[in-house]
């Protein structure tokens, strides 16, 4: 059809269409704590966006000064009206105000130009660099991809953290829970994983989304700063709903984050999303639900809190090739109280995720950092995605460490140990050291493989325990300087073949000779 015909048709329709479209409206009858009761709006649907009409009765000039439209979100449908949450400043809403329905479900903007930006739970830029342009609206609530559209997890998501990549490997499209008490290094694991994506080739580097929920603004600002300084911000989006934001926005933020991620997944990209943390989101949802007068259940959480988290985490998946092959990997974080993983929210989220890594205060305080308890942490689907090179060297470590922990406990009672036991303990202690890693220092896969291989080959047995980390570091630096090709080959093929092993064996000998002082023992 040619464009003039189209124009004519549109003109014709416009002539016959009723000139004035009525909007469905309601009236605010009560307002408080971020929630409003509205009379009317009988046609409203759940999660519909409402607009508060602030300009009524105000002079034009006054209305022009308003800071953008004020939105609400329908959360309860009632007999004579609805209850909605205010997506903004409660003080702007007054009793008697007219509320307009929009017929639209809440959506957030997303797009390439959002990369490197900090946005709020509505997708609006809050980093002072002006609005984000060229965006596409993505629905905040969306049905997760069905079984037929999914593919199993086969591509690794490298965290750059030895203890994880070796023992609890994560695959792209997986949901791996990070759980632990306050201050056990949960956020650090997540941020280091984002930093490590710099080691990935640009073409397949995951887009990273960090959703900060109920965090101190200063903490999030520091994280943004760190990502910027390290060059990780250009592939990262930060969605920030700080502790000072209304409960509604803290509840929404993870959904906004995943909606922003789905834009990239739909384009065949891999996405990594971090929810830091879902305990705080649950608390915000509980607060909101009490204000909405929904009946409280266990631990005063509303009955649908399980559904809240399951429908969020369901949206992490790997799509089939027909659907573009994109993925969303989710790393939700849960904060426990005194290690209690049997509380309501932890048990819920544990049951929804594909694996869990437990961070333990005792280990953290003992200096075992990252404080991951590798004995109880699991990654049910990730091992299918682990690279062959890593699988080859990491195979025996879990068992070795488990035996070592047992012997270590036993050692406290026994005074004289036979040589074999003493050796095992010495070796276990050194493997524990090899797996330690400072925050902010993710290591690429090939170096991890080389370091763990060296550990397996007992390179560090001649080194005092407290110097293992340091020696390991200088060994990998040595490889960097003298065995670049070998490292590059491991990285490229994902394999660690006999040829490579021979080279690393050779490197170990050279290293020992060159650094006699380290192996004095």
């Amino acid at each position: 059809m040619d464009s003039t015909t189209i124009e004519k048709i549109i003109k014709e329709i416009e002539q016959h269409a009723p000139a004035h479209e009525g909007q469905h409206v309601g009236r605010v009858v009560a307002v408080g704590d971020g929630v409003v009761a509205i009379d009317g709006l009988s046609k409203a649907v759940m999660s519909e966006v409402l607009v508060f009409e602030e300009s009524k009765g105000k002079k034009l000039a006054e209305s022009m000064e308003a800071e953008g439209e004020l939105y609400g979100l329908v959360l309860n449908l009632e007999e004579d009206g609805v209850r909605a949450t205010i997506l903004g400043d409660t003080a702007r809403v007054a009793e008697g105000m007219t509320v307009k329905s929009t017929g639209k479900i809440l959506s957030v903007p997303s797009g390439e130009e959002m990369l490197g930006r900090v946005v709020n739970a509505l997708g609006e830029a809050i980093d002072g660099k002006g609005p984000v342009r060229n965006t596409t609206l993505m629905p905040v609530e969306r049905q997760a991809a069905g079984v037929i559209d999914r593919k199993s997890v086969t591509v690794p998501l490298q965290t750059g953290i030895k203890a994880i990549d070796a023992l609890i490997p994560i695959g792209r499209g997986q949901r791996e829970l990070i759980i632990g008490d306050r201050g056990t290094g949960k956020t650090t694991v997540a941020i280091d994983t984002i930093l490590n994506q710099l080691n990935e080739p640009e073409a397949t580097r995951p887009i990273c989304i960090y959703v900060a929920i109920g965090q101190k603004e200063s903490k999030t600002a520091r994280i943004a700063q760190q990502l910027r300084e390290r060059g990780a911000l250009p592939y990262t989006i930060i969605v920030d709903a700080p502790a000072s934001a209304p409960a509604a926005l803290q509840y929404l933020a993870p959904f906004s984050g995943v909606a922003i991620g789905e834009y990239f997944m739909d384009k065949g990209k891999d996405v990594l999303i971090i929810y830091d943390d879902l305990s705080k989101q649950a608390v915000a949802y509980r607060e909101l639900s009490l204000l909405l007068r929904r009946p409280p259940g266990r631990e005063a959480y509303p009955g649908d809190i399980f559904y809240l988290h399951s429908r969020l985490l369901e949206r992490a998946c790997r799509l089939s090739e027909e659907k573009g092959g994109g993925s969303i990997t989710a790393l939700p974080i849960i904060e426990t109280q005194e290690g209690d993983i049997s509380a309501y929210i932890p048990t819920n989220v544990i049951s929804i995720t594909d694996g869990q890594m437990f961070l333990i205060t005792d280990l953290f305080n003992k200096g075992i950092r990252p404080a991951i308890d590798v004995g109880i942490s699991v990654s049910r689907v990730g091992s299918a995605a682990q690279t062959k090179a890593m699988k080859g060297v990491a195979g025996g470590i879990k068992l070795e460490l488990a035996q070592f922990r047992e012997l270590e406990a036993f050692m406290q009672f026994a005074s004289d140990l036979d040589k074999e036991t003493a050796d095992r303990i010495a070796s276990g202690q050194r493997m524990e050291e090899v797996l330690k890693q400072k925050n902010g220092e993710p290591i690429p896969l090939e170096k991890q493989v080389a370091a763990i291989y060296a550990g397996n080959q007992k390179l560090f047995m001649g080194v005092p325990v407290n110097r293992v980390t340091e020696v390991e570091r200088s060994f990998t630096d040595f490889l960097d300087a003298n065995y670049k090709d070998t490292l590059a080959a491991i990285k490229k093929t994902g394999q660690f073949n006999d040829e490579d092993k021979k080279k690393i064996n050779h490197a170990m000998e050279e290293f020992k000779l060159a650094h006699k002082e380290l192996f004095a023992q």
Partner: protein
Amino acid sequence: MEQTYATALWKLVENGMEYREAISALRENLAKTGRGNLLPRIGKAFERIAAREAAKNDVTLIIASEADEKKAHAAAKKALEAMNVDVKHLKTRIDPTIVGGWRLEGAGILVDESYKKSLLDMYNRAIQ
């Protein structure tokens, strides 16, 4: 609680019960269940229902000045017809802040043809 009683009272009278009879039945019931002191609150809730019910059929035409009335009235009538809204009483109110044009509000609908809205829309698009 008072909401439920007030709704019941409203429905009784609406369904044809004589109002004095309905009230005495309500009071008897309250006394029996020991809730006599709820009565004032039921009264308030009843007023709210009455206001809401009245608003259901009330549509107000808002204009900037009396001079606009005739033209606005005709346009509003047309708009209401187009939307299939049957209005018994169309009240008129003057609100100079709408600058010009007209606005229909009530019965759960809003038609805003005011100059203020057009100007605001234009302004907001321009500064975006």
